[in-house]
């Protein structure tokens, strides 16, 4: 790698390939928006038994997992960001 290469921007071809891989993961997943909505509601229902969830802030999507190391292959993964309002004590 030359000195110039070191500072060079990431190539647009690479960017296209990475963006494309992400788009295809969600295209290929059989999860229609309705199914995603149902998954979301089920998650809320289950978690609500234990904690108070910020329903508006909840975000779930199918994405590509990074895959750490050679053993773990990158593949589709369900990514969920679930903000908790209050961890209630239930008894």
């Amino acid at each position, binding site marked *: 790698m030359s000195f110039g290469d070191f500072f060079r921007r990431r*190539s*647009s*071809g*690479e960017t*296209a*390939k990475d*963006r*494309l*891989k992400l*788009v*295809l993961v969600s*295209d*290929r997943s059989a999860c229609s928006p309705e199914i995603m909505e149902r998954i979301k509601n089920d998650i809320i229902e289950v978690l609500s038994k234990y904690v108070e969830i910020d329903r508006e802030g909840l975000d779930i999507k199918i994405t590509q997992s990074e895959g750490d190391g050679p053993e773990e292959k990158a593949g589709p993964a369900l990514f969920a960001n679930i903000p908790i309002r209050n961890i209630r004590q239930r008894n």
Partner: protein
Amino acid sequence: MGEVTGEVIVITSGKGGVGKTTTTANIGTGLAKLGKRVVLVDTDIGLRNLDVVLGLENRIVYNVVDVVEGTCKLKQALIKDKRAEGLCLLPAAQTRDKSAVTPEQMAEVAKELKAEFDYVIMDSPAGIEQGFKNAIAGADRGIIVTTPEMSAVRDADRIIGLLEANEMQDLKLVVNRIRSDMVERGDMMSAEDVVEVLGINLIGVVPDDEKIVIATNNGEPLAGDESLAGQAYINICHRILGEDVPYLDLRKKKGFLAKLFGKN
């Protein structure tokens, strides 16, 4: 009708404008040059173009809708290409729409044709609606054409999914309009990148060659001539026949000055 029948290949892409029709015309011409009996079927009813790319637009009398509706016999609708022996065209109707033919009817036409020809090549319209369903109905194998652009590759992926859902096993990829200069500086996905993303096997890589524009202007497909694109197309034809042909080096030959001052 003989016992041995030909093969039906659909050429499709999802996205429009990636070179399906040009690819169809060149594969047809190439296979004919290699001594095969080939019929090209334009299934893009209402938006026919294969006739123009082949330079046969002035010879159309009947079309595929006439055949399906019984207005003429199948043989009457076939146009023989006088420049490429063994090549015929079954044109689409221009004044009708996709609903004029059903997938069952198109499959029947393909079946009838494959009794007479070695290869029946269906040129699919863009999209995933009726015209596409017609084109794939009778096909034994598929060739998916894409360019190294995100939108085209994404649509190709969708098409591959639909073909696999239709239990079409033999799917091959043509990556069209590769600009090796852009690939070299990292500003275009390479054919290998596209193959990696789509996960199907390659059957051809065609350079973005201005000779293709000229060939289309003249209505004379260039498969098999000395141009880089012409070589790329004839190589696809050899691979369709099951031959193992190495891929071309698509880097443009250096110009006079580069030759003079460059190392090579």
